[in-house]
Structures are given as C-alpha cells and as structure tokens.
C-alpha cells in the first residue's frame, strides 16, 4: 500500500469530504475533518522523507505511463509545499471547532467542514500533480470552496469580497487554461516533464511566449501579486477567522509554487529569464508591493485587513527571491513560503481569538486587550516580531537569506528596500501593540481570555515560529535542495 502514498495523500481527504457532508452533525463532521488533516499531514511527512532519501517519486494514475495518463510527481519542492499545506490544516482544524461555533450558523457547520476539507484537497492536488490540466481541475476545487468559505463571514461585505474574488479568480483560471491550450497546440502534451522536453523545440514561435504571458498573468492573479491583488484584502478581512488563517497561509503559497513549477520546471530558467526576462517584471513589482502595501497596511483600522495588506507585501518578498534567479534567492523565496505560512497563520489565529472574545477586530475595539487577553496578545506580539524579522524568529531567517542573495548580486538597493519593508512592518505591528497594551479599555467592558482550544493551536504555530527561527537546518536544507533542483544545479 505504501507505493500508493502519493495518491492517498489526495484521495483520502477527497473521500472524507463527502463523508463529512453525509454525517450531518457538526461534531462528527469536525472529527472527519480532523482525520483528513491529520492523515494529510502524516502522508506529506512520509512523502517528504521518502523524496529526500530516494529522490523524485513518479506515480502513474490508472497505471497509464505518462504522457498518456496523468502522473503524480513528487520532488523536494512540492513535497515541502504539501507539508506546508497539510501542517497548517492540521493546526487550523482543531482551532476551527470553537471559532466556527461562534462565527458560523450551526446548520451550516457540517458543510463548512466539507468545504474546508475540499479546499485543502484542492491545494494538495495542485501541489502534487505532474499534469498541467490536472492543475486546473484541482485549482477549481480549491477556489470554489474558498469562495464559499469566505462568503460565510459574519459581515455582509464577506459576500461582495467573495464575489470579487470569484470574478478575479475565474479570470485567472481562464487565463491559465488559455496558456495551457496554446502550449498544447504546439507540443501535443499536457505532462509537465514531457512539456519541459518539447517546449524548447518550439520556443522560437510567437505562440509559446504568448502562452507564457497568459500563464504568468493567470498565476499572478491567483497569488495576488501587486497590482493584481485587489481581491485579497477584503477576502481575508471578512472571511471567518479559521478560514482566513487557513487560506492566508496556504492558498497564495500554492500559487507561488505554481509560478515556480511553470517557469522553472516547465519553461526552464533559460527561457523564462533569459528570453522572456520575467525577472525584469517581477522584481520591480515585488519591490513596489513590499513598499506600497506595507504603507497601506499602516493606514488600516481593521487589523485583519492590516494583516492582509501585509500579506500582499510578504508575497512581494517571495517573488523578489524568485526574481533573483539564484540558488540563494530561490531558497529565500521557498523558505519564506514556509516561514510566512507560520507567521501569518499565528497572527490570523490570534485575531481569531480576539474575534471570539471581543466580537470585532477593529483597532478601536482592541484597547486594553494586553491585560484582558494576555496569552492572545503575547502570541500576536511574537508573531509580529517574526513578521518584522527579529532574530530568533523565522522571519529573520527569510530576510537573512533574501538580503544575502541580493548582496551576492551587488543589488544593495534591493537589500535596502527589504530592510525598509521591515521598518514599515515595525510601524504597523506597533500600532496594534500600542492600542492593546497602552490604551485604556472603555469602562465597564469585561473581556475574557480565549478558550484553550483556540490558544493551544495558536501557540503551537507561535512556538514553531521560534523553533524554526533558531534551528533552520531542516527547512533551509530542503529549500536549498529545491532551489538547486529548479535551477538544474547539481548539489
């Protein structure tokens, strides 16, 4: 059975999703969702260790050899992404129980978990597959469930932001389909490895650069790369807390993975960066995103929205790393995938605790929370420090690699802008800290600390921030290995 592990990674949650819908009891559905998340986490760890020991795994669905059948192909990069997605799911699921009870109507809870499992399944499916059309199918599974989950937020603006996300997401998906179709017309194949071999033969035509452009725009829409990020702030701000915590730490990460997969594995760095010069577009966009979105974050009064703008800026860091096209730069980008998932996961989960106890995440409503919710706010502070990039946190590791990679190429202005982004992060994190610790709460308000069922998962992520900030050997090792593989450099 262990040879089937790659497909079981996806199929077990996919089978558990309808079961979660059928049991129709909130508690049972939650247990099913827990089982799905824990299974996925275990399977992804198994896959990662196997990939690191034995190299790339190829699994032939339906026993049809690629390119005739669909292939699952697991290497260091996507095994790492699988671990990120399923680890976050495994932390968010236990957290979701109390949070969802408070925020989602009880007759919907069962379907809520179904949608959450489907969203995770879709993301895992995108990450693991070696077939470009299969990417599209699983992309839609994750997107459709994400639209529905976001719309469940308690504010009516959740509906409009979900609609906006649906429109922009569908445009992105359709662009990706156009790109796939153009590639298919020139090569006759949909298998990624096969495409990588056949594309160079036809790369001189006009069609392939256009396919490249459509894929670039489509994926950028999904990953909310500035200036295509317009759907993101509202979607994150108004979704239920557990949904924000999950989607913010996984969905854009998987989109970044797709960017890497398409432009490094399929088109190859030579075509993407020497011929198409994608780095010349990505780098300025990333830098603008880091600066402008961090400034926008400062002006937000809704803390979830503030963190959402910060997310767009952080996506800038990942894309910046990629645009350096060096082992260090790529490793920094890939490392930040993981690290940012931990950072934003813990911050949004802390906000979920605030939502639970206070019923609002507006800055004004958070006065005095440092006293009344000490554990929640301590988690927020530590997450915030990690976001800024203070030593001994994961945020520092990412920035360290990124600055080094920039300096390695003599791009000191880039390094300066990265550090400036950190300073701006100090400003917006401080804004929250100041209100929570130094402003007196309104008279007569009694707010209690969030329950342990919320605090424990939050603190698990916070401690992970510290652990992987001190001992980055494992994560950095995988990231460098993945970066070498993408660039085709022997390790």
């Amino acid at each position: 059975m262990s040879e089937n592990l790659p497909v079981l990674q996806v199929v077990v949650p996919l089978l558990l999703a309808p079961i979660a819908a059928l049991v129709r009891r909130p508690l049972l559905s939650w247990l099913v969702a827990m089982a799905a998340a824990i299974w996925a986490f275990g399977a992804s760890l198994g896959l990662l260790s196997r990939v690191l020991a034995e190299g790339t795994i190829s699994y032939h669905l339906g026993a049809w050899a690629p390119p005739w059948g669909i292939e699952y192909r697991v290497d260091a990069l996507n095994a790492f992404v699988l671990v990120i997605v399923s680890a976050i799911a495994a932390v968010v699921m236990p957290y979701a129980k109390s949070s969802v009870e408070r925020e989602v109507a009880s007759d919907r809870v069962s379907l809520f978990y179904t949608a959450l499992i489907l969203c995770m399944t879709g993301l895992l499916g995108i990450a693991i597959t070696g077939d470009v059309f299969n990417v599209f199918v699983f992309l839609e599974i994750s997107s459709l469930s994400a639209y529905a989950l976001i719309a469940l937020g308690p504010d009516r603006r959740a509906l409009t932001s979900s609609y906006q996300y649906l429109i922009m997401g569908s445009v992105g998906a359709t662009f990706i389909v156009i790109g796939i179709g153009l590639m298919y017309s020139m090569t006759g194949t949909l298998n990624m490895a096969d495409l990588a071999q056949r594309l160079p033969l036809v790369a001189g035509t006009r069609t392939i650069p256009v396919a490249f452009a459509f894929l670039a725009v489509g994926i950028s829409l999904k990953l909310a790369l500035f200036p295509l990020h317009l759907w993101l702030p509202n979607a994150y701000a108004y979704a239920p807390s557990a949904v924000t915590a999950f989607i913010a730490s996984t969905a854009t990460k998987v989109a970044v993975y797709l960017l890497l997969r398409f432009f490094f594995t399929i088109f190859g760095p030579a075509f993407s960066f020497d011929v198409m010069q994608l780095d010349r577009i990505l780098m300025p966009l990333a830098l603008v995103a880091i600066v402008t979105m961090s400034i926008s974050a400062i002006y937000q009064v809704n803390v979830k929205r503030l963190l959402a703008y910060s997310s767009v800026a952080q996506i800038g860091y990942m894309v910046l790393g990629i645009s350096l096209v060096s082992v260090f730069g790529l490793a920094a980008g890939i490392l930040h995938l993981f690290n940012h998932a931990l950072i934003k996961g813990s911050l949004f989960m802390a906000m979920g605790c605030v939502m639970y106890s206070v019923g609002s995440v507006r800055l004004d409503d958070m006065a005095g929370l440092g006293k009344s919710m000490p554990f929640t706010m301590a988690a927020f502070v530590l997450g915030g420090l990690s976001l800024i990039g203070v030593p001994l946190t994961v945020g520092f590791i990412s920035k360290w690699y990124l600055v080094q990679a920039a300096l390695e190429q003599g791009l000191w202005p880039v390094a300066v802008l990265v550090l400036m982004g950190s300073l701006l992060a100090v400003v917006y994190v401080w804004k929250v800290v100041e209100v929570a610790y130094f402003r007196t709460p309104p008279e007569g308000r009694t707010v209690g600390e969030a329950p342990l069922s919320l605090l424990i998962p939050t603190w698990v992520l916070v401690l992970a921030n510290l652990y992987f900030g001190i001992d980055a050997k494992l994560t950095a090792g995988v990231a460098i290995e993945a970066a070498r593989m993408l660039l085709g450099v022997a390790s």
Partner: protein
Amino acid sequence: MRLLGYFNYWIVVVLMMVGFYTMISRGNLVKKLVGLSVFQTSVMILYISLGKIFGGTAPILLEGQEHVIYTNPIPSVLILTAIVVGVATLAVGLALVVRINEAYGTIEEDEIHQQDDVM
C-alpha cells in the same frame, strides 16, 4: 484555406474579448457572470478548433474500416471537464448574487460600494 484557418482563430479571439469586456466593464453582477460564461465558452471553441482535422470524423472507432482519420479526442476530453467547471463556477457565482441582493437590495456594483462607504 490557410487564411480561413486563421480567420477561425481570430474570430474566436474577438468572441473571447467581447466576453472578457462584458465581464470587466459592466457593473451589474449578473451581467458580469454572463460575460464570464461567454469568455469561458469562447476559450472552449479555441480548444475544439485545435482538435479539428480536415476530412476527419468524430473520434468514435468505426469497425472494419482502416485508414480513417479521427479528430483529436484530447481537446474534447479537456473541454468536457472545462464545461462542468464553468457551470460549477456559475452556480456558486449566482448563489452569491442572490445573497448580495438580499443583503444590499441591489446587484449594481456602484450602489453596493455606496452603501458600504456610508458606514
């Protein structure tokens, strides 16, 4: 014949762009979704055009006949999936429109923004 071949692609591109334009220029939420479905459907025409072979026949094996040219089945298979995905997106989109209408009393984008800005 060669020109006709490209004519086919160009018309499809124009159709795609009309759908895309409907989608991004109109403020009515239902109309946007109609635009999306025209956009997606036109992309499907592009795919199906890719599969066509002149003088070919539908990809259903004819027994006892050799040297039959069959049209490429792959685009058909992909588009069957894409049609389903399209209607799935449409259903979720329309459900959102119904809920937005209940929450705001309108499905015009600018009026919705006005209502949210007042607060």
